[in-house]
């Protein structure tokens, strides 16, 4: 069953999604050859992207990094927007595409499914200056071999109305039963938000022995559900799309809660209310996306050129600013329109990035090596229904 766009459109549209689903499934790695050298461009490039990753000016005349690419390389780009990670995987299986901007969960499925090839980073000159904390991670490499070029990442920060809320240092600000902001707290409307609660419990209830917020056994999931049921009494409204979240903060229906940096920026740009963001001491959940090349790519040279193009300092800066996430390219920071952009998004802040638990699809096979005792996403979905009541 292909997943559905609307339900998780927030993942979809912002290209977030769920990471490293099959990490525990130790399937054998298919032997896919790596490209040795770069040839001439083939004139065409077919890619699968998250909305906003391959803008060609059709939505906004000023936002265009596809046509300049075509001009520079002669590769005409056909970008297909996918709604979900599942859609990306099934599209890649058709073999008609050269590459994909995959999120954490899709990446390992694609690697082990043999749909993508290892990336020869030597053929991507811009790779050298990509943030080192994004290289060789479990969602984009196997045994030290990179399977993609990191694109950008972001955290699900704690946003708060700076005029009415004192800077919170802990997620307890949104989870405490006796919150002074009862009725004006918000939370992300998706089963994946259970991970935020689990992350909080990881710090506050060591007895539960949670080591990874995406690997919860039945007891741990139940504890997270209890916490979220308590939280629900204080929630004014859940949010699942960008526009709704901004409106809610601006009308003061919401004073604090889980959010994205780009949302806070938009609110502050409207100058109605001032919203600040923070990553509390417990850390935060987040996302990280990677460009991967198909093992059956018909236009591999164009795809390599694209991977280099999209991570070049100017373009990576443009994409990151349009999309509202941290660029992977360290040199992008001097090319952003907003000079403080990289500081705002902590783009080169390794310590900050370390505090993020990137979205991962929970499976029965625990990511922390406890075996098959964990709860899967279907169980999380049913739990989320019971939380909302």
């Amino acid at each position, binding site marked *: 069953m292909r997943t559905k766009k609307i339900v998780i459109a927030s993942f979809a549209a*912002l290209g977030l999604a769920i990471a490293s689903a099959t990490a525990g499934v130790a399937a054998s790695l298919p032997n896919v050859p790596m490209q040795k050298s770069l040839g001439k461009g083939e004139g065409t490039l077919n890619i699968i992207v998250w909305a906003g990753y391959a803008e060609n000016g*059709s939505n906004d005349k000023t936002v265009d990094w596809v046509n300049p690419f075509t001009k520079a390389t002669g590769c005409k780009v056909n970008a297909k927007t996918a709604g979900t990670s599942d859609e990306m995987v099934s599209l890649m299986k*058709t073999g008609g595409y050269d590459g994909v901007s995959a999120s954490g969960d899709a990446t390992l499925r694609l690697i082990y499914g043999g749909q993508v090839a290892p990336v020869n980073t030597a053929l991507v000159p811009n790779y050298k200056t990509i943030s080192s904390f994004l290289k060789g991670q479990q969602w984009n490499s196997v045994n030290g071999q990179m399977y993609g070029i990191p694109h950008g990442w972001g955290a699900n920060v704690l946003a708060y109305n700076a005029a009415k809320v004192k800077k919170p240092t802990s997620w307890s600000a949104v989870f405490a039963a006796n919150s002074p902001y009862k009725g004006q707290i918000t939370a992300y409307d998706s089963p994946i938000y259970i991970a935020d609660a689990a992350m909080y419990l990881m710090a506050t209830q060591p007895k539960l022995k949670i080591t990874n917020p995406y690997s919860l056994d039945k007891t741990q999931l139940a504890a997270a559900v209890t916490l979220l049921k308590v939280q629900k009494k204080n929630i004014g409204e859940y949010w699942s799309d960008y526009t709704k979240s901004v*409106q809610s903060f601006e009308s003061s229906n919401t004073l604090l809660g889980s959010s994205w940096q780009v949302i806070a920026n938009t609110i502050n740009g409207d*100058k109605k209310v001032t919203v600040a963001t923070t990553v509390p001491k417990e850390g935060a959940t987040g996302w990280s996306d990677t460009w991967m090349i198909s093992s059956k790519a018909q236009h591999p040279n164009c795809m390599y050129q694209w991977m280099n193009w999209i991570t070049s300092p100017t373009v990576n800066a443009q994409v990151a600013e349009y999309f509202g996430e941290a660029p992977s390219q360290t040199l992008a920071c001097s090319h952003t329109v907003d000079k403080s952009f990289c500081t705002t998004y902590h783009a080169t802040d390794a310590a900050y990035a370390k505090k993020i638990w990137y979205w991962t699809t929970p499976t029965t096979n625990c990511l922390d090596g406890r075996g098959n005792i964990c709860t899967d996403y279907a169980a999380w979905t049913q739990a989320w229904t019971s939380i909302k009541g």
Partner: protein
Amino acid sequence: MYLSRRAKLLLASLTFGTLGFIYVPLLVVALNSFNPSRTFSWPPQSLSTVWWGRLTESNGVLPAIATSIKVGLGATAIALVLGTCIAFAVSRYSFYGKNTLSLLVIFPIALPGIITGIALNTTFHTFLDPLNKELALWTVVVGHATFCIVVVYNNVLARLRRMGQSLEEASQDLGANIFQTFRFVTFPLVRSALVAGGLLAFALSFDEIVVTTFTAGPGTETLPQWIFNNLFRPNQAPIVNVVATLLIVLFIFPVWLSQRFSQDGSAGGRL
């Protein structure tokens, strides 16, 4: 006078109240199209035509409207054929399962869109996956046509029941064959019902998003989907208010015209 003055006044005030209920939110939409905020948060701080200007720069909306029109025309065409066939069969013939069929035709619109959507999605994948084919534009047309049939059916059936069969019988008695009778007698009589039904079918299809979501291929984007995506995409959500305002203004006249056209002493179209 068959209604008292008081009753008329009461009805008039209730009608104006309801029209107010219908149009206040539309005024909010129109006003929000001049709201410079990037998420059209209420109340507007100031008024600006910035989003109207941005619409002319955004050439993403035109392909989306074109897709919606294609889908709407395709679905309406199929619905016109199938709906008319059923209406003729139900009104002119008796056959086994007639009652069941007249109930079945209601199903696709009476059952929630999400159910129709999931069911069709599963079927499409069952047949397309082995062929290595993806959902596409035609799958949306099929989905929309399924729930549009009933609208055409209702309009044509009501017309056929009212006009009876005597004119057709007269035509055949005078020597016209079945095709001539249809072309010169029946069709002109049901034409306005087809227009009314077709317009409503098109309207249903034009604003449909749930069935669309489940039946659209990755490259297909209808206007409602474009609007949906824009509410999620940073920077240009308010354009959707401009589009909606334009659609209202653009459609007032054709809708009124079609209403006048189908005003032949009967109702102005049935759902």
